[in-house]
């Protein structure tokens, strides 16, 4: 059963069309890679899936299981199990990592009629997840992403995902600006989630991260559409030649 089914998705921002009919299906627990050059519409797709108000869907649908979420609010999508790891995570000065993630988890528990974790149980889970990603304990009290390095911000995205446990994790260039150690750490977190059944969309320019998060299918975007689909062989072809050659 598909988790996410995108049909003929057309999106504009500031009256400028960006996506020109994207079709994509991501099955439950599947790992999918989306590659493409800058400006091909990858980030627009990610932000549109998360419900960013700047992007307007002019045609097409986004279905989540049997629910049409094309017009759902960002928090509703989140409660259903969609999680976007931002390319540029925002800083929230004055809101600690501990408080922010707890507020998010509590919101999920309430939306899904679960009893929120006790503070103690939450802190245990938080510490475990931080340890998995090698995030020092001192970060728990720091303001979220405030003064964090690029790598620290990306780890904090995965930390949130590990605790919120989404059904679909969308990684928008999680690898950009990361050194190889950080890529390995982040991948470890992603694979931990994947093993518990989460589907993953990896949006990237580079093959490197796909050595650690292995996709079952690969899609290439150009000019706001998916122009080619395949498997890792497609990535190998890209490495050898170029986007133009592969998509020609």
């Amino acid at each position, binding site marked *: 059963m598909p988790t996410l089914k995108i049909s003929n998705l057309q999106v504009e921002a500031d009256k400028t069309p960006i996506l020109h009919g994207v079709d994509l299906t991501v099955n439950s627990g599947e790992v999918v890679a989306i590659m493409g050059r800058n400006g091909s519409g990858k980030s627009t797709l990610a932000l549109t899936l*998360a*419900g*960013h*108000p*700047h992007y307007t869907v002019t045609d097409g649908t986004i279905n989540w299981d049997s629910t049409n979420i094309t017009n759902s*609010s*960002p*928090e509703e*999508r*989140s*409660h259903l199990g969609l*999680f*976007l790891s*931002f390319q540029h*995570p*925002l*800083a*929230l*000065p*004055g*809101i600690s990592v501990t*408080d*922010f993630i707890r*507020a*998010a988890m509590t*919101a*999920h528990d309430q*939306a899904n009629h679960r009893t929120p974790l006790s503070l103690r149980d939450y802190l245990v889970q938080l510490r475990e997840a931080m340890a998995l990603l090698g995030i020092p304990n001192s970060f728990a009290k720091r*303001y979220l992403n405030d003064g964090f390095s690029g790598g620290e911000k990306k780890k904090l995205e995965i930390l*949130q995902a590990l605790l*919120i446990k989404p059904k679909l994790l969308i990684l928008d260039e999680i690898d950009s600006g990361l050194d190889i150690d950080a890529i390995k750490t982040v991948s470890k977190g992603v694979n931990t989630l994947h093993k518990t059944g989460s589907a993953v969309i990896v949006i990237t320019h580079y093959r490197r991260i796909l050595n650690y998060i292995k996709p079952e299918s690969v899609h290439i975007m150009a000019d706001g559409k998916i122009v080619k689909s395949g498997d890792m062989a497609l990535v190998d072809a890209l490495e050898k030649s170029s986007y133009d050659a592969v998509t020609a």
Partner: protein
Amino acid sequence: MSDAKKLSPVVMSEYQYGFSDPEEYPFRLPKGLDESVVQTIADQKSEPDWMRDRRLAALIEFGKKPLPPWGGDLSDLDFDAITYYIKPGDHVSRDWNDVPSTIRNTFERLGIPESERKYLAGVGAQYESESVYHNLKEEWKAQGVIFLDSDTALREHPEIFKQYFGTVVPAHDNKFAALNTAVWSGGTFLYIPKGVHVKIPLQNYFRINAKNMGQFERTLIIAEEDSYVHYIEGCTAPSYTENALHAAVVEVIVKKNARVRYTTIQNWSSNVYNLVTKRAVAHAGAVMEWVDGNLGSKLTMKYPSVYLVGEGAHADILSLALAGSAQHQDAGAKAVHLAKNTTSVITSKSVSHSGGRTSYRGLVEVAPRASGCKSKVVCDALILDPASRSDTYPTMKIKNGTTVIEHEATVSKIGEEQLFYACSRGIAAEQASTMIVNGFIEPIVKELPMEYAVELNRLIGLQMEGSVG
């Protein structure tokens, strides 16, 4: 124009059904201001002649002074619609059921204790302070600390009162200082003898004190050499008044090597013009800290000031303003460096939402002879929606070439991206904006006593309700 309903239809219409039965006040002057009003106030208080003369002279100043041409819109302020004196009595009682439900709900949701709620709403006569207050009173007395309402202080300590009254904020300083000098009533008088450190913030344990709250209160604080005190006034719960004008004067004298922190949190109802002159004089090595939070009112114009008159004196001014629908917070700070090696730090944080408006208006002045001074001004504004507005009016008058000045101003149009980020984690928009606003003001809130901080955070939550589309 004499009809106060004009000010704010929503709030005033609530008052028509609640509050205010004039016959229950022991004494109340008719609306409007003239010499007979001032004479009557002086008569009622049996004041010494010098104070009566000061009042009358101030009334003449008030008539001469123009309204400030800058700041907020005062064109609807009708001096004839104001009652200038109501003698406080022990029998002021209104029925709790007459208090508008919106106000009662706010108290409940802020978690204000029952006894305090009634007081705040003008229902209870006097908030019964706990025994801890009496013990503290004994301790202060033994140390020579004088902590009284200003009327009592004038009666019991006329010599100190006369020595300092009006020395920091003279009547001719501005129209509202003149008005206050003419009709002042209530307020706090605080005298800390040399070398005395008052450990517990005053007002913290009994923050509600009948005589401290008024429309034209006058506060005078004298900290003798090497002393320390933290004074706290106000509260986060809305202060309701039928009178549309609050014009207070606060004077603080911080002597050599003394330190005074003065914390104010005010949340006037949205019909009130809140026009307050707060000024301190800091002598050599002294430290003056203002923490000033303005939440309510129709228009606030308030710029806590420090005149650094002694070498090495330091001023620290934290200003917080929150403006919602139909509110304008014109707040800021003034640091006037008149002596060598004096330093000042001004931090202003403002939040405007639901069509509210905030302005930062600040002055840093350094006199020609004041060498080696340093000043840092940081003002951050957070605007939550396109209908809201924020402006910055910083003024620097630096007449000494050795001054080091830092000025940073940021305006964050929230948050749409921050808001989306938080929402994408499943947090509802309203809660997300509350978190973002509370996070934004956190550097100031952490300077507040715990219960104020908690209430303030809750209050912001209440204000954010319905502010996110």
